[in-house]
């Protein structure tokens, strides 16, 4: 009995000790972390439901249709009249084009291994992967199902929209000489229309993901190579790729800043040079710790050679074994235990794992920095992220990459190598259809919803909470650091409230974002900029305003905290935290500030103070399934009462307006799933219109540029 008690105490103590030391960045973990578990939050095996269903459908081969009704499009329209197929007839929103017909005879020989040295290890039939096809989106944009489903099979009961693979199967069939095979039918139809409409891709990789060749036959390395040997082997074939990489943001940690106010033409801004944040503050003087996320080896001080291609780390992005990992404190060097030869021989495309290992883990741990990215996204449920969880999207499928320049931009950092938006795929009027049971009435809403896209970013309604599935840090007070005796408490999410090295924290889960006008430009505080210590310093702030037609309402995570400032020079301090003489070893702020400022080339007055700062982070990931987006009444309190749409419409159609307006994000359901959202249930002022500069609910007071013809009162704009 006593023994058990002692054991229990002991294990509790060890646990506590482990917890207390967990954030210790100076501690080198013994072994590389295991790959993320491919399970849902509840431990059940993970699968991307929409993707699997689409793949299953793609495997079906319908019975071959021999004859079709030969009629011109006009004849067909006349025959069908009112019965022309519509969006409501679209059975599947999402499809994968990967029919077994494309790999069976006579195409099979393309997939057989054959001699020839141009493509060692890659079967030519396998160079390109299957296509993700937004079927419903295409139907909505094309507006006429019969444009693609151009003939109806001859049988009377055949569907007007019979699938492509029913009529188009084998090529060059002597019985049907003029009927293209399935592969040509797709390419002719898709590319023909994309060309004609001047919309959509017409190059191979615009639709197909390219499969990398099998590198196990290409990569020649001795056993246990060191990382630089691996890179040299990569360079043997990919030298020009390395040249592209030399000028990329992931290598330089600086680059063009087209969206930073006042720095639109600069190319020198970034973490490597002049940005500062309110997490671990700044890179300078803390290199070996921070650069564990650099796509390179050995950036341990200011003298790193950015022209040395052999110092590039190709594996950090191209590992497919899910095992590659860098030691957190070794300036980007990987764990020595890893089998680098095996990893190098399996290289391929980046994945959520490779991107996520840095981007989910920013700020020293999972979910710390980004409000919308965390380790859950390695294998998220559909509810956590509909793209990654439902359809197994990998990061690069949205963040299109050319010459190792990865598109996408953020508020947190100035560097941008191209930008992506929801509209790139979903178009400017994304609300065109709702299918399935319970959605019939929704078509009435589309007009209104599409008008919203002029004033709101998609995320505003489609990502109504952030840190949806895992708490993210929201407050960091450096001034409290240094108390080794203070007991670390857990908050309601089980997250620690304190670390003696870093200070005091707060966390938020399933949190409501802050909504602000945003026109894509960011004001940014840089290292050395003067501050007003009386005011909260805005490290990043979205530009925009209600009167600016370019601005739309956008959701943000605001990260707040207290950090160090030079009380004499009125600038923020770059502290020396990591290293034998850093604060985390010495607990001596004076020396840490002096050393950090010296490394940053700044004058330090010797006096410091703690100032409050705020940093805005845009929220774009964690898209909720469409039927869970914010509904009308969740923002428009005007629709809450008995009068809803019939405030304006005198519509006697048999539509339950009230029900229609009240659909939306089901916070009650989310709360029942253990999310911290009970306070949001029943809210009808989700967006605070007054705070955004409106007089009140635009339904009553009018929009920012237009007045409603039937509004009770007209709105005046604030500015």
């Amino acid at each position, binding site marked *: 009995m006593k023994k058990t008690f002692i054991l229990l105490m002991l294990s509790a103590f060890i646990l506590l000790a482990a917890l207390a030391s967990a954030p210790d960045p100076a501690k080198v973990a013994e072994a590389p972390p295991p790959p993320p578990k491919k399970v849902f939050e509840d431990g059940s095996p993970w699968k991307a439901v929409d993707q699997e269903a689409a793949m299953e459908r793609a495997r079906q081969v319908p019975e071959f249709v021999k004859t079709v009704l030969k009629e011109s499009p006009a004849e067909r329209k006349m025959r069908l009249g009112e019965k022309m197929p519509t969006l409501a007839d679209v059975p599947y929103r999402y499809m994968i084009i990967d029919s077994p017909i494309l790999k069976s*005879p*006579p*195409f099979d*020989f*393309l997939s057989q291994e*054959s*001699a*020839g*040295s*141009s*493509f060692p290890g890659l079967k*030519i*039939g396998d160079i390109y992967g299957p296509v993700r096809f937004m079927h419903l989106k295409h139907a909505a944009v094309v507006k006429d199902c019969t444009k693609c489903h151009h003939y109806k099979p001859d049988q009377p009961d055949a569907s007007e929209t019979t699938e492509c693979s029913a009529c188009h199967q084998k*090529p*060059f069939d*002597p019985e049907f*000489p*003029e009927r*293209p*095979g399935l*592969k*040509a039918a797709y*390419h*002719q139809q898709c*590319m023909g229309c994309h060309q004609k409409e*001047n919309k959509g891709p*017409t190059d*191979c990789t615009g639709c197909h993901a390219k499969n990398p060749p099998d590198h196990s036959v290409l990569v020649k390395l001795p056993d246990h190579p060191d990382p630089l040997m691996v890179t040299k082997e990569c360079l043997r074939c990919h030298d020009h790729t390395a040249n592209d990489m030399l000028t990329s943001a992931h290598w330089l940690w600086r680059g063009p800043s087209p969206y930073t106010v006042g720095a639109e033409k600069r190319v020198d801004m970034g973490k490597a040079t002049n940005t500062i944040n309110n997490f671990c503050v700044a890179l300078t003087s803390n290199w070996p710790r921070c650069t564990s996320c650099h796509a390179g080896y050995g950036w341990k001080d200011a003298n790193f050679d950015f022209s040395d291609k052999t110092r590039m780390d190709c594996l950090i992005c191209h590992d497919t074994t899910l095992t590659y990992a860098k030691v957190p404190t070794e300036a980007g060097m990987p764990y020595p235990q890893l089998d680098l030869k095996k990893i190098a021989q399996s290289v391929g495309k980046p994945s959520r794992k490779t991107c996520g290992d840095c981007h989910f883990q920013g700020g020293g741990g999972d979910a710390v920095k980004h409000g919308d990215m965390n380790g859950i996204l390695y294998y998220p449920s559909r509810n956590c992220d509909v793209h990654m969880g439902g359809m197994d999207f990998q990061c690069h499928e949205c963040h299109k990459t050319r010459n190792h320049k990865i598109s996408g931009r953020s508020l947190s950092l100035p560097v941008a190598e191209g930008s992506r938006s929801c509209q790139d795929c979903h178009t400017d009027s994304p609300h065109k259809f709702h299918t399935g049971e319970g959605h019939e009435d929704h078509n009435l809403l589309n007009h209104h919803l599409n008008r919203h896209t002029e004033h709101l970013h998609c995320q505003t309604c489609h990502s109504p909470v952030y840190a949806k599935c895992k708490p993210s840090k929201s407050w960091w007070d450096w001034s409290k650091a240094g108390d080794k005796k203070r007991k670390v408490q857990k908050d309601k999410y089980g997250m620690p409230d304190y670390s003696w090295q870093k200070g005091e924290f707060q966390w938020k889960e399933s949190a409501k974002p802050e909504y602000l006008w945003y026109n894509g430009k960011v004001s940014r505080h840089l290292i050395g900029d003067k501050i007003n210590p009386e005011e909260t310093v805005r490290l990043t702030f979205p530009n925009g305003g209600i009167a600016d037609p370019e601005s739309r309402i956008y959701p943000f995570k605001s990260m707040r905290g207290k950090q160090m400032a030079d009380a004499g020079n009125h600038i923020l301090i770059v502290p020396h935290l990591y290293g034998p003489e850093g604060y985390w070893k010495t607990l001596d702020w004076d020396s840490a500030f002096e050393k950090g400022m010296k490394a940053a080339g700044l004058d330090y007055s010797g006096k410091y103070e703690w100032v409050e700062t705020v940093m805005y982070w845009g929220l774009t990931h964690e898209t909720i399934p469409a039927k869970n987006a914010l509904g009308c009444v969740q923002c428009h309190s005007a629709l809450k009462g008995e009068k809803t749409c019939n405030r304006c419409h005198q519509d006697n159609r048999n539509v339950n307006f009230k029900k229609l307006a009240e659909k939306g994000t089901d916070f009650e359901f989310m709360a029942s799933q253990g999310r911290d959202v009970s306070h949001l249930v029943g809210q009808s002022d989700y967006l605070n219109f007054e705070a955004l500069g409106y007089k009140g609910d635009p339904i009553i007071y009018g929009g920012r540029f237009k007045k409603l013809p039937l509004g009770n009162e007209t709105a005046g704009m604030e500015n």
Partner: protein
Amino acid sequence: MQITRRSLFKIMGAAGGLSAIGSRAAAAENTSDDDYGCLADVGRCIGCRKCEMACSKVNALPPAQTSFEDMTVFDRNRRPDEAAFTVVNRYFSSRADERGQPVPAYIKVQCMHCLHPACASACITGALKKQENGAVTYNPSRCIGCRYCMIACPFQIPAYEFSDPLTPRVRKCTFCFENISKQGGLPGCAAICPVEALTFGTRSELLKIAHQRISEAPLEYVQKVYGEHEVGGTSWLYISKVPFEKLGLYPLPEKEIPHLTETIQHSIFAYMWAPITLFGILAGAMRFFNPQQMSGKPSQIQTEKEV
């Protein structure tokens, strides 16, 4: 009987002229309605170069100098060579699209597999042969490297491995002879073409398809099937929306070229038996002193060995 180079030289002096006549006769005999052919629709080709890639792979050609995804190769016109049996070239027609950009036309170039191949007629050893299924194939073990075929071909197709000092071969599109000899087999290029710009089938069927396609779109297509009659007809046929001359397919006489080359050859051989005997003796001497050089590369086309 297996004809080796040596036995060939033995009989050559006497039979040189006759063998040429023989191959001419064989060519005419071999063509029939069931010959395979390929219809290349220039109006459909998107210039993706996948056919070049597939050709390189199925024929185990040496690695390409630049990637098959490098579209800058279109900046100059290319000809098939010993490392590429087919190339795609880009031409700009006078047509412009809605944005005023000139519309490119892409044309795949390879051996036309003539019904009466001038190359085969010019070949004094029968190394080039019109096969029953339509392919004009090459047997390196018979080739003496005279390269008459290169001069004779009206489309300048055969290429020579000048870079190989020991056992150079004449190289050209094989029509994927081995593949198409199999039931349901396809040439690599036609199999991979994503838009079926290349249609594989019997020549008679292809002619029907071609005429149907151009007559259904009279305003778009040039009302002519190139290769139907040119040089006596070719197994590869072209239809196009831009005039053929603009694609490098120049007007050629309908008369089969072999007549011409044979006339030349026959007159050559009538008076040139002496030098040929001399070459034969020289070749015999070479064989004696350097058996390695003369052994030839193993035949790719096994069926050619038996005569």
